[in-house]
């Protein structure tokens, strides 16, 4: 065999490689169901349908918590003071630079809707706490401002915004 190593590839070489390749594809195809079964199942996805939230009972300065896809969603009815605090800071200098205007829907500046999960390691921040009058995470001390933007602590990003829209002046649909 060694004398033949420099010769043309034989039909047998081709068969070895082709068999090996088909076997690898087959093994990967067999492994996929075993891996994919761990992803969210059909009922979990179905239960993640959009939800409606009535904003009328939420007083100015109040933050309510609703659940969507097992995640807490903060709906904050901001006071003019809180809006002003969020807007007077030069947002270009923040750790995750975003303007307050880009985090609310135009014309609904008092309504801030956030996914209430600390972007560090997933704890739920506490409202109206910390040095920025926004949210404070009790786990590792991340502090968010009245726009839900990270201002200090280990969290890398601002509190994310869930997909939502206003269906009327006092109603939103999240999802």
């Amino acid at each position, binding site marked *: 065999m060694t004398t033949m190593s420099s010769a043309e590839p034989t039909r047998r070489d081709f068969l070895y490689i082709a068999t090996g390749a088909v076997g690898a594809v087959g093994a990967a195809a067999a492994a996929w169901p075993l891996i994919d079964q*761990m*992803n*969210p199942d059909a009922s979990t996805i179905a239960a993640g349908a959009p939800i409606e939230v009535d904003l009328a009972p939420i007083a100015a300065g109040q933050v309510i918590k609703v659940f969507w896809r097992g995640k807490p969603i903060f709906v904050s009815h901001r006071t003019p003071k809180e809006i002003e605090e969020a807007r007077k800071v030069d947002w270009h200098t923040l750790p995750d630079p975003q303007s307050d205007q880009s985090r609310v829907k135009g014309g609904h500046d008092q309504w801030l809707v956030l996914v209430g999960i600390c972007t560090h*390691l997933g704890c739920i921040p506490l409202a109206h706490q910390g040095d920025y009058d926004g949210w404070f995470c009790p786990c590792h001390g991340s502090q968010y401002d009245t726009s839900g933007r990270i201002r200090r602590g280990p969290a890398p990003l601002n509190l994310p915004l869930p997909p939502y829209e206003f269906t009327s002046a006092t109603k939103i649909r999240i999802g």
Partner: protein
Amino acid sequence: MSAHSTYQPQSKFMKWMEARLPIAGLVHSSFVAYPTPRNLNYWWTFGGILSVMLMIQIITGVVLVMHYTPHVDLAFTSVESIMRDVNYGWLLRYVHANGASMFFLAVYIHIFRGLYYGSYKEPREVLWILGVIIFLLMIAAGFMGYVLPWGQMSFWAATVITNLFSAIPVVGDPIVSWLWGGYSVGNPTLNRFFSLHYLLPFVILGVVVLHVWALHVVGQNNPTGVEPKSKQDTVPFTPYATVKDGFMIVCFFIVYAWFVFYLPNYLGHPDNYIPANPQVTPTHIVPEWYYLPFYAILRAIPSKLGGVIMLVAAIAILAFAPWLDTSKVRSATYRPLYRQFFWIFVVVSVGLGWLGSKPAEGGYVIAARILTAWYFIHFLVILPLLGLLEKPKPLPASISEAVLGKDKAGAKARG
């Protein structure tokens, strides 16, 4: 292993058996006739203790599963019913929960013993790496077991630890969703953790078999770090090591029983007796004591991804110790400088554990950063440099000489 086999089957049945499956001979050569260095001290008994702890965890675990229900609505109450209704359920659960702590206590002593006496050095690198793998599997098994009672600490530990994976760029979030089986920690998460918590101890058992196999190929290290050279340097495993291990296991059980019967919840957190609530995070989240040094390292780094990388690196770096340590001398007994740095390293590790239990603010963070830096400097700078700079003390010619003194060992060898 078979090289030491002196097993002679006596009965007719054992002769018949030995010709077909020589298991009695294997046990005899591995745990009876197996030569152990005659100078082993009590720090060498923790391997035996760990084997016993693994068996206790498997036995109590299998029994607990007969009464536990892995469902978010039922898990907490099923654990409470184990505590209140099941005959001796309180005992089985406390033995299992405190057993985890004792398991880690023993493994930390076992690891520090290996670091002190240079047990990771050639030819024991593979033995050592298998040990690091067992330690990693223990961490995973311990974490998933802690989630099962589905109390507040269980739920938030699951949330925080799975979120570590979200630090991975690009694929982080899909991986976390895959781990959860949903959009947050929930019933699918609890179910798979239960499945894996049941599986992992048997995986550990398999790696332990490899660990013991590798040990019996290269032989045990000993307090002098000098390999046995003659028959005089060793004694048979039974009765010498079995009795010594047995005595130490009893001593260890006294401490274990003290926790089980008098302080069963001392090492746990009261918050875990509150059912899991996805709406409220406990005000002060800390992991179990045995993860605290690594938790302190995670929090010391002011970047999410960086913290996760350092956390993993802190464990992985152990596997590289055989190549980072450049000294040819194994035992710290003959390494005056290394011995001092070893104890500094012990203090740093315990200090990191203490800092991990403190809130991440002010001076605690600064201290954690200094100790984290030292942890890595120990492996990456001190271990390589010491081997080049340190002048070791003269090694004894043999184990017998170290034990008996030069004249006696010489006389015995002649006589």
